[in-house]
Each structure stands twice: as C-alpha cells, then as structure tokens.
C-alpha cells in the first residue's frame, strides 16, 4: 500500500498563544509522545514539530483518513486539553498539501516574521529526536531532509531571508535617527521572541550600553539575558523599569497590551522627556498604539518597520513568488519519489521496462535474420523470449507484492526501482 503523509497542527495563524502554549511539547516530552504516536496502528512514521509559534504532527501511514483522524485526539489526550478547545484551530493537510506546508514552514514562509532563520534549526532538532526514537522512517526521513534543502535553496536563491535580518537593521536605522550614540543608552527587551533577540543583538553590536530583559517567565528572561550579556528584570516591574529605557523592543506575543499610554506617560515624566523609541515586533501587538501620541515617544510596529526597510512592495512580492516556486518544484519532485514507492506502479514499470528490452532485442534480431525465418520459427522465438522474461520476473514481482503490506515496503520498492533503473527521482541528495 502506498504511504500518505498527513500533517495536523495549529500555528500563530489559527491559535492564540494561550492555546499554543497548552499544546506545546516541553523538553523531554517529545520522545514518549512520538513513541505513543507510532504505536497507533494507522501510523507508521511520525515527527512532531513544536515551537512557540506552532505545534504540528507530521505522520504517515497507508490509510490517510485514519492517520488524520487519530492525531487530534492524540494531541488533546497528550496535553489534557478539551477537544473543543482545539476544534476549529487545527488544520489538516494531506498528501501533497502536507508536503508543501512542511516545506513552507522549513523555508520560513509560514513564520510570523517571514524569513526568520530559527525555524530551520528547530525543525532539524525535532526531526533528530524523532529519528533517535525510531519514529521516523524512510518516508519522513526523505521528506524532512528535502524540507531542509528547500529551506537552503529559498535562503540562497531568494531575498526572503534578508528581510528578517533587515527587521533588526531597520530597528537600528531608526534608533540612529533618534540617538546619535548608543553607548549611554539602555535597551529593554520585553518578551522572548526570536525576532526580539535578533534585534537586541544588533543593538548591542552598535554598542548599546545596557540591555535589560523582561519576560513572563523570569527564568527565560535570565537565560536570554545571560546569552546576550544583559540584566534580567522581573516582568511585574516592567513599568518601573521603563523610565530607564531609551529603546524598548516588544517581542512578547499574547493578547492585551503590555504597555499602555499611561505607563509610558509616567515613564516619560520620570525620564524628563528624553526621547524613547519603542519597537513592537509582536503580533498581536504588545504596546498600545496610542503611545505614539506622547511627545518625544516614537512607537513603531512591525508593519511600520517594514516601511522603513528600503525594499519596495513589488520586490518583496517577487521574492515571495520565487520562493513559492522553489517550494512547488520541490514538492513535485518529492511527490514523484513518494508515488514511486508504491508497489503497483513499480510492478507495472518493471514489467514495461523488461518488455521493452525484450521487444527491442527481438526486433534487432529479426531485422538481421528475419528473412531466413518462417512464421512458425518467429513465433517460437517470440514465445521463448517471453517465457524467459516471465520466469526471471516472477520471483522479484511476487516478492514485491508480498512485501507490499510490510513496514519496509518503501525500502524494497526503492531498491527494485534502483536496481532496474526505473526512473523517478534518483538523486538521494540527503545531507546531514
């Protein structure tokens, strides 16, 4: 039976952070979850992708319907979440769609900040975990490695990746229009989002004097502060820390504003109206847009930053189209490979190939000797060659059919296709 890849999950597009954090897999919980998944009779291989912006289960099995049906229940049970919390937030992609989605995720086309580079690393790590517990097999191995090379292609062949970097540099550029030096400035990073960290790093590279980090969980703030060489401040004291900050970067997702107009107003009085730049990278926004009305305060959200970035909309759309084209062609090539793993077409292809050889050789032979053979002799040669071919093919074909129900089906099919050079995708360019 052929394998169908199914992807079920939720992301920042469909679920708020409250839901995402409920179904996220903490360190150490992936392994048992993966073992549980592949223990399901319908599921043969599985990889779980869990980041702060998405939780997705990629699985494959011969019966796509059953695989797709099994995953939502598994997610709900695994996290003790009511099934209707997830209903309407989970999306299901199957077959080609699933492959395309995974490729787009890997290439950071589906990210909150399109082009941010962290997602690929996270994907690799989580694939490695699945491989280490034996949850991924030939199909997902190939699929994930393909997604990694798609990501590399998109990064090197389009300008998508430059955009994420440019969010950080746009922030720096803005800061330079307000401040003439960074040494005596203090930056405050609110939240642990990847883009915030990237931006803070770029500000530090410019020589920003002090970095403070606040996060809902203080430990995480400590980690980031340690990594970047900053000071962790308690989240509850955010408003009290604010007067010290010349640059505030918001990278905490979640509903509701972390900073309101009143907070910044008070802070500005306390800092004697020295200019303050707030950059809100979060979606939904962390800072109340009304803050921008305060004298001496400049608030930019992610869309405003995009305006600062020098590339125009046309160029951006072009990059996106180019990236989608790369994804599409890779999806094609992967799906051809996957279809090739099917027993039936392999059997057909093998028969056709051998028959072609037989016919070709026969024609060549008859062309040179044809005149001296009478019809009966011709008939005999024809039968002889057909019998030889059938005898030779009998064992491999029946073996292939028998293995068709095995877990190793794909392996046998692939070997057969390789040995007989049955075409399809023959470049196993699997890196790492």
């Amino acid at each position, binding site marked *: 039976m052929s394998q169908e890849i199914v992807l079920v999950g939720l992301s920042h597009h469909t679920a708020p952070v409250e839901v995402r954090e409920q179904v996220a897999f903490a360190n150490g919980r992936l392994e048992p979850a993966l073992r549980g998944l592949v223990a399901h009779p319908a599921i043969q291989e599985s990889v779980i992708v869990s980041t702060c912006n998405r939780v997705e289960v990629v699985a494959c099995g011969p019966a796509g319907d059953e695989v797709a049906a099994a995953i939502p229940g598994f997610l709900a049970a695994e996290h003790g979440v009511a099934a209707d919390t997830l209903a309407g937030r989970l999306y299901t992609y199957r077959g080609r769609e699933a492959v395309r989605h995974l490729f787009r995720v890997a290439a950071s086309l589906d990210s909150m900040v399109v082009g941010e580079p962290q997602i690929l690393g996270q994907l690799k790590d989580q694939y490695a975990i699945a491989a280490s517990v034996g949850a991924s097999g030939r199909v997902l191995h190939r699929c994930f490695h393909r997604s990694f090379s798609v990501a590399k292609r998109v990064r090197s062949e389009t300008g998508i990746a430059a955009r994420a970097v440019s969010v950080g540099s*746009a922030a720096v*550029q*803005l800061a*330079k*229009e*307000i*401040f*003439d*030096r960074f040494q005596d400035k203090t930056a405050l990073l609110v939240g642990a989002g990847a883009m915030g960290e990237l931006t803070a790093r770029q500000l530090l590279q410019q020589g920003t004097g002090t970095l403070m980090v606040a996060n809902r969980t203080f430990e995480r703030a400590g980690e980031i502060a340690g990594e970047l060489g900053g000071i962790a401040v308690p989240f509850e004291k955010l408003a009290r820390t604010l007067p010290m900050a010349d640059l505030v970067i918001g990278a905490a997702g979640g509903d509701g504003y972390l900073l309101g107009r009143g907070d910044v107003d008070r802070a500005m009085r306390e800092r*004697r*109206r*020295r*200019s303050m730049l707030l950059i809100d990278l979060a979606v939904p926004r962390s800072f109340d847009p009304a803050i*921008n009305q305060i*004298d*001496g305060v*400049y608030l*930019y959200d992610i869309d*405003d930053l995009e*305006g*600062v*970035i*020098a590339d125009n909309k046309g160029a951006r759309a072009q990059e996106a189209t180019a990236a989608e084209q790369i994804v599409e062609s890779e999806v094609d090539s992967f799906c051809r490979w996957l279809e090739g793993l099917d027993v039936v077409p392999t059997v057909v292809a093998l028969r056709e190939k051998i028959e072609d050889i037989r016919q070709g050789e026969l024609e060549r032979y008859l062309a040179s000797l044809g005149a001296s053979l009478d019809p009966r002799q011709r008939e005999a040669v024809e039968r002889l060659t057909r019998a030889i071919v059938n005898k030779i093919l009998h064992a491999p074909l029946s073996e292939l059919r028998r293995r068709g129900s095995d877990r190793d089906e794909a392996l046998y099919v692939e070997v057969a296709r390789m040995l007989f050079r049955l075409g399809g995708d023959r470049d196993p360019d699997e890196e790492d």
Partner: protein
Amino acid sequence: MELLLLRGAAFFYLMATVAALVGISVRHDLPGRALRWLLTAGFVAHAAGLALRGQTVGNVPVTNFGEALSFLALLLVGVFLLVQLRAPLVALGAVVSPLAFGLTFSAVALKGGAQPLPPELRSVWLPVHVGLSFLGDAVFALAFSASLLYLVQERRLKVHRGRGALRHLPSLETLDRVSHTCLKWGLVLLTLGITSGIVWAHEVWAGVWARDPKLLFTLFVWVLYVVLLQGRMTAGWRGRWAAQLTIAGFAVLVMSLVGVNVLGLGIHGKAF
C-alpha cells in the same frame, strides 16, 4: 568690484544650497564636501567684498541695512564652517546656505552707497559691539536652523515616514545638542554684545540710549533665551518644546533686527 564679489558669494551660497539639498537625500559624502568647498569659496569672496567696503567706510561696513545683512550672512557662514569642523552636518547646511544666500542677495539688491560714518561712531567700540552682537545673531540663527530640522525630523519619525527625500537628516539627539550648544554660545555673545553696546553708548550719549527701542527689544530676546536655557538645564525642557521655543526666540530676534530698522527707530535706526 565689491559688488561683483558679493554677487559671486551669493552665487556660491546658492550652489551650496543645491549641494546640501542633494546631500540630505542621498547617502554619499560628495555633496557634503561640495557644500564645504562652495561655502568656503563664498565666504572668501564675501569677506573680500566686505573688506573692500570696509576700506571705503573706514570701519566695519554696517552703515546701512544692506551692509548689515551682508555682514550677518558672512558671520553665519563662518560660524557654520567652524561647526562643520567638529560635526559635519550637511543637513544644517541645507538651512544655513539658503539663509546666507537670501541675506547676501538682499544686500546686493538693497545696494545703497557707502555712507561715511558719523564721527561719534568712529570708535574702536564699533567692531567690538557690532562683531559680538552679529556673531551672537549668527549663532542663534544656527540654533534656529538646528531646531527647524529637529521639528522636521521629529515629524517624520512620528508619522513613520521612513523614506523620502529627507531620509539623511541628523539624529534628533544631535540636532537637540547642536541647538543647545548654539543657544549657550549665542547667549554669551549676545550678553557681551549688549554690555559692550551699553558701555560704548554711555561714553557717547550718556543716558539717551536707555530708551533705545532696539536695546529694549534685544533685552527682551535676551530674557527669552535665558529662560529657555534655564528651562533646558533645570526643568528638562528638550525636544519638540525646546525646538519650538528656540524658533520663537529667533523670530523675535529677527523682528527686533528688521522691525527697528525698517521703522528707523532710535540710535540703531539708520543701520542696525
């Protein structure tokens, strides 16, 4: 000859204006260098022209309104070029150059033959008083220019217009600091200018000067600038508010310069 030099200077200032405008819209240091060279050339021509005029007059050539404008333009360009040595701010040149051009052009247009100085003004106090006062005015004009740019840049940042022709303006912090520094120096020079004027007038007129409208106006401007500086240093006035006050202060200063002269009031009435 002096008129030719003056026209030449005005031409250089006009070219400098173009260079500065190009300089704030492209990221390249060529317009900035062109700006400095053009202003320097203008300054030299201008100074030579005024020196010739000075010879005719026998002292600092500020005997009529036109001469006074011309002298102010020369000092403005000079101060700007000095500031450029410390902080190369092309954008500031985009305000200073047209100002200098306008002043010099008006001076050329007003012409007015050189009048011999009345004997009571032929004194060593004339260059001291006039030099200090005009230098103060020039420095205030620079503070005004920086504040004007501050408001433009502030507006740009507020409405999130990251691109456009003005994208290479200096940072708010730089503009604020330049404005502040100029205010301080301007105030020192203005104070010295007023003091020297009082001492001199006391020698010449003994008493009459105290009701001179120009003096009263200038004292008002002086108080305004003192309050502004005091506010900046102790009450933390800065940014937009401080920039607006600086511009308002300069507006009053210009009114005192032009108004008194046009109305021909008091002892400054004939010239400045």
